[in-house]
């Protein structure tokens, strides 16, 4: 995996789950980019969540953990797109799967393109 783009370029990347960005025109398709991460919960969080399992309701620690890992996989996808010279990633899709007891994988993919303001 190519992972050495500069941060400034990464912040300029436009992400969208539509097939186009309003007001712009796609001038080049660069192919599919993807990012993934597998995260496990830690024991401390697990004990608290176990208590929460008695009364039900939102498990804040897990929500946070998954948001964090989703951010990480998106960053990896953006890094790949940046390395290809793209300035937008379109048609982004997310998928989550439970790979083994206590661990989840987050996978994000999309199409890297170069867009130009019309």
């Amino acid at each position: 995996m190519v992972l050495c783009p500069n941060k400034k370029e990464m912040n300029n990347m436009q992400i969208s789950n539509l097939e186009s960005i309003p007001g712009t025109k796609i001038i080049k398709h660069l192919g599919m980019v993807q990012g993934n991460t597998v995260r496990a919960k830690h024991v401390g969080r697990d004990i608290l969540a176990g208590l929460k399992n008695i009364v039900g309701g939102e498990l804040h620690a897990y929500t946070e953990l998954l948001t964090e890992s989703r951010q990480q996989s998106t960053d990896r996808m953006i890094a790949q797109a940046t390395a290809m010279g793209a300035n937008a990633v379109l048609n982004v899709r997310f998928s989550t799967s439970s790979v083994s007891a206590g661990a989840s994988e987050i996978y994000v993919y999309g199409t890297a393109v170069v867009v130009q303001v019309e």
Partner: protein
Amino acid sequence: MIFSFIIPISLVLLGFIVGRINEARHFADLQQREASFQHVVLSDLKTIPEGMNRSQFVSGSVVISIDYYKRIIASIRMFFGGEVASYQSLLTRARREAILRMIDEADDYDSKYIANIRIETSKVFENDDGIGSLEVYAYGTALS
């Protein structure tokens, strides 16, 4: 000897009482927040309406778990088959919450229209004893 009965029964009672209060409170909260966001149009179409020229990716997620009492009711229900109402209310809560969080993010960008909404439900961090929690992730593109 008697303790081996007291503990599970008190857990079920605790789950029943606290879980019920929490759920009622959550539903009331959802209704109120949904009413305040009525002006935002939600759509799962990919078409971009006329006059929209700015887009921003928005998302919302929530991890939720079921209470002890409902889990037992559900396992009894699974013996006879049929509609499992206790799991259904859990899923409804999670989905409405995730959508609201997504709208909340869109509202930060002053957007009145969210296009191409996708909602994904998955079981996360399942233990060996099968007690897992449920994650709902809602995402879309906020247009303005």
